[in-house]
């Protein structure tokens, strides 16, 4: 597996983990605040494992923290979907679902990978992702079916996020079919529609990001950039 691809996986996990953690302490229901924080922790844990692996391939003193904290936004390879602002709870849920529906078949496949390191990380993460997928699917259905207001909010969420779904799958063509099946089936349960004729936006893997990622990294990397070379 190429270093770029491993970084792509790591960046996806870190950026989404970071976004979700912005909810910690601000969730709509205490139990769900805890659940989303858990997902954050899982994703950041996955990112750390992947960065550590990438760092051994890169050498040159690279570590999980140099990779996370000292790369500029044009070196980040995450898909655009994960860097978008959280929006309301429904958008966060929808994004998590769309992402988990991709990550689940991905880690399933990588669990059989010849790359021993990736294989081990995927196996370890698959259990977590199975839970993320179930949790987010249930919430998509709950909010899709709940009230007129929640349904409207979920419809908005789908419309807002759909343009970024092509970018999500661009570098994992093997997962596309399973992703589509999963999304169709959950949307059907949730009485939500897949929007038609959407203009797709992509470029995350190539480092062409939105200004949201720049803002996020400014905040995240602030201490490491201000006080370089010290231990924390």
């Amino acid at each position, binding site marked *: 597996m190429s270093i770029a691809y491993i970084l792509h996986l790591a960046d996806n996990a*870190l950026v989404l983990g*970071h976004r979700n*953690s*912005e909810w*910690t*302490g*601000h*969730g*709509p*229901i*205490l*139990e*769900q*605040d*805890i659940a989303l*924080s*858990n997902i*954050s*922790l899982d994703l*950041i*844990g996955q*990112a*750390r494992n992947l*960065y550590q692996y990438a760092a051994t391939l890169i050498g040159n003193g690279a570590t*999980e*923290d140099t990779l*996370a*904290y000292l790369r500029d936004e044009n070196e980040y390879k995450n898909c655009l979907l994960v860097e978008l602002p959280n929006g*309301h*709870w*429904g958008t966060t849920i929808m994004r998590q679902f769309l992402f988990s529906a991709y990550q689940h078949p991905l880690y399933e496949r990588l669990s059989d990978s010849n790359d021993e390191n990736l294989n081990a990380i995927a196996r370890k993460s698959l259990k977590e992702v199975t839970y993320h997928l179930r949790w987010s699917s249930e919430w998509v*259905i*709950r*909010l899709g*079916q*709940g*009230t007129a*207001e*929640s349904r409207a*909010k979920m419809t908005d969420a789908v419309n807002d996020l759909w343009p970024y779904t092509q970018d999500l799958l661009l570098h994992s063509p093997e997962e596309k079919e399973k992703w589509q099946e999963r999304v169709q089936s959950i949307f059907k349960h949730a009485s939500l529609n897949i929007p038609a004729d959407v203009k797709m936006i992509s470029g995350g893997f190539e480092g062409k990001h939105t200004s949201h990622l720049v803002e*996020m990294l400014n*905040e*995240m990397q*602030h*201490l*490491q950039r201000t*006080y370089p070379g*010290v*231990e*924390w």
Partner: protein
Amino acid sequence: MPSEEVIFQDKVDREIRIEPKDWMPADYRKTLIRQISQHAHSEIVGMLPEGHWITRAPTLKRKATLIAKVQDEAGHGLYLYAAAETLGITRDEMVDQLHAGKAKYSSIFNYPTLTWADIGAIGWLVDGAAIMNQVPLTRTSYGPYARAMVRICKEESFHQRQGFEILLVLSRGSKEQKAMCQDAINRWWWPSVMMFGPNDESSPHTAQSMKWKVKRFTNDELRQRFIDICADQVKVLGMQLPDPDLKWNEETQHYDFGPINWEEFWQVVNGNGPCNKERMTARIKAHEEGQWVREAALAFAGKMSSRAGVRG
């Protein structure tokens, strides 16, 4: 036949736990609801100052540890709300009281977190003071509260060690990091000392609470213990506590310490601390913006159970 009141006090005296279905004096119930809900609110509001640094934590490991810590505090809030609910109040009612300004939470969370070192100082001092207050509560007379505290105290001591370790790394770091470390200790020390509440002579409920074994030690006893421990620990950091009067007293075998600024304490308790408004605004905002989610979840649960009803 002895009166219910006598039976109750006899149980308390013999260290038999009072359980939700047992008879208890109305004031005991009221005191516990106030104390436990206040404690629960403190856990929840306490998520905010530290949560503020999750997105800026300096390493991935620190970020993960901090998320886990703040998440633990949410868990503490949950156990404590559940314990209070056994006394005949709902979580919704308690949360409403908090948002209406009718219920208090620990004033310590009305101070801002200005640098990364604050995360260390909070863990070391604030969680440290909380432990000092809470370990005796694992033996408090009300069963559900005592049991909740056992679990909570385990996690709090983990938080305290993590906080101290953050400061330890800073204390051995660059000039800027050392200054950051000392500055955070300076700002968090006195508010932490005040976490034990007013002096015993100005704490009118202490005697009753001790008789009920809701409380086991007085505010001043716990405060002294805390100061004694911190005065030694700060030496490991090579830092100083901001108290020129702090001095070991051979005679009392305790540290003497300087006067506490009770004026500041009451100011913050009464809503005039640096962040009182900010904290409540954040909690109310989260609550209001979550309204539609809670309504949808409720509506969905209703639909599911009526469907199950038709099938059954």
